[in-house]
């Protein structure tokens, strides 16, 4: 089946129109991540001052928060774009058209790239200009870090869309806390060795674990493992495949049962 870039662009254009005319949508693109940067920036400064060890917490803690917020923004970029269609009960106008599911999801992903980039730029500016985070510490490995987290964010975003499509609009409240639920397992703030054994098994299945373990090794000037990052990317691809299958399955179920046509807060929640 041919994917039409024009139709994918139409989905992005709709998101652009929505954001363009709405300060309430513009502000969250950067406000929450900026607040996170400021809060964690001062926490790391304070830790640097009281620890007296000479260890610099900025690249390990503030850098980790930045990367984690980037992941969360990517995921929410996908789900928010989908929720716009949920909230405006727009499924019939979207799906009773030549638009294919891959074009629609492609539009959600492109929208997420645009919105999460705004957050990333704001975080980078704040972290470097205000708190002295130097990305030279990470070197070129910053690129695979961002890539692994980006792909995982897309995969979880698409899974989140599938859950809301299946369970109804009220289930969006199951989606918002997903990053917070995952963060203890992937060791954003501490080494995975801190976790009990059973949690470490789960950590190994989650791509971001490999990013944060690698990041800590690098900051401590220990050799990181590029193979671990490759493994994280491979896991990402598995998650992406699962997410695509899951959304497609839920969509076809919705078409079979008539859910798409009847989708509304009243009919499902």
């Amino acid at each position, binding site marked *: 089946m041919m994917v039409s870039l024009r139709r994918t662009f139409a989905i992005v254009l709709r998101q652009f129109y929505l954001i363009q005319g709405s300060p309430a949508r513009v502000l969250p693109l950067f406000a929450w991540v900026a607040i996170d940067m400021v809060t964690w920036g001062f926490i790391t400064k304070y830790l640097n001052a009281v620890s007296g060890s000479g260890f610099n917490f900025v690249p390990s803690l503030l850098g980790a928060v930045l990367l984690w917020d980037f992941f969360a923004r990517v995921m929410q970029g996908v789900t928010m774009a989908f929720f716009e269609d949920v909230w405006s009960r727009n499924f019939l106008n979207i799906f009773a058209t030549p638009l294919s599911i891959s074009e629609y999801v492609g539009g959600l992903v492109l929208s997420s790239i645009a919105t999460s980039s705004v957050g990333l730029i704001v975080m980078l500016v704040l972290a470097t200009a205000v708190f002295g985070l130097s990305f030279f510490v990470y070197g070129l490995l910053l690129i695979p870090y961002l890539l692994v987290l980006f792909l995982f964010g897309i995969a979880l975003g698409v899974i989140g869309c599938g859950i809301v499509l299946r369970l109804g609009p009220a289930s969006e409240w199951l989606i918002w806390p997903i990053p917070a639920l995952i963060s203890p397992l992937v060791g954003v703030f501490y080494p995975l060795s801190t976790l009990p054994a059973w949690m470490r098994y789960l950590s190994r299945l989650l791509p971001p674990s490999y990013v944060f373990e690698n990041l800590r090794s690098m900051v401590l000037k220990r050799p990181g493992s590029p193979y671990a990052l490759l493994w994280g990317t491979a896991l990402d691809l598995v998650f992406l495949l699962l997410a695509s299958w899951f959304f497609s399955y839920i969509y076809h179920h919705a*078409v079979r049962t008539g859910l798409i046509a009847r989708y509304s807060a009243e009919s499902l929640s």
Partner: protein
Amino acid sequence: MPPAVLSVRELRKHYGATIAVDGVSFEVNRNEIVGLLGPNGAGKTSTINMILGVLEPSSGTILVEGADIAAKRSQVLARTNFAAVYAPLPGNLTVIQNLRFIGLIYGVKNLASRIESLLEQFDLFAFRDMKCGVLSSGEQTRVGLAKAMLNNPRLLLLDEPTASLDPSVAREIRLQIREFAAQGEGGVLWTSHNMYEVADVCDRVLFLSHGKILLAGDPRTLPAEHGKETLEDLFVTVAREPLALGRI
């Protein structure tokens, strides 16, 4: 002879033990307006949803100009469009924004000029930069009709298209849809509970009851053929005593 604009064959839809559509077959030809009538729950919306590709039939085929929607979904839906009171365009976008993004999805050529001509046709110029959510229900209906005409569809599905319009605007809209059917290469499937409108507009009607086509024919002669004075009387009989018509 070109294939029918819409050809529905032995269409069935059941939800578990509940049968919504039970072996429906009909055609909509070029330049024809066909009324799909029936009481609430008769299977009209399920039939329309299956033609729009948002509800999978349990069995049967739907062909638009000979192309099967099951095999060529995008191609078929690019030639189809619809307007329904239960599917308003997003209220948080302006009229022009809605028409632009939907027009891109349908791949409308010369989109900007097409939108301008539709704004004029449906008297929407004054509302072009207003969000759809703040328009009156009649204005929203006109925006929905403009959206339905964007891609010059071969098959136009209209579900109660004039329900929220005042009689004067409704008459104007009926004229425009008749003109669309007469001059273009398309056909229209029209559902309405306004039997006077149906008698005025439709070339042929299909009465649906319990998921089956109970009666079909010319709306101007059908009532007399079944001993009724008006189309509305016939509708009431179909709704209350379908067995009296002896075909179920």
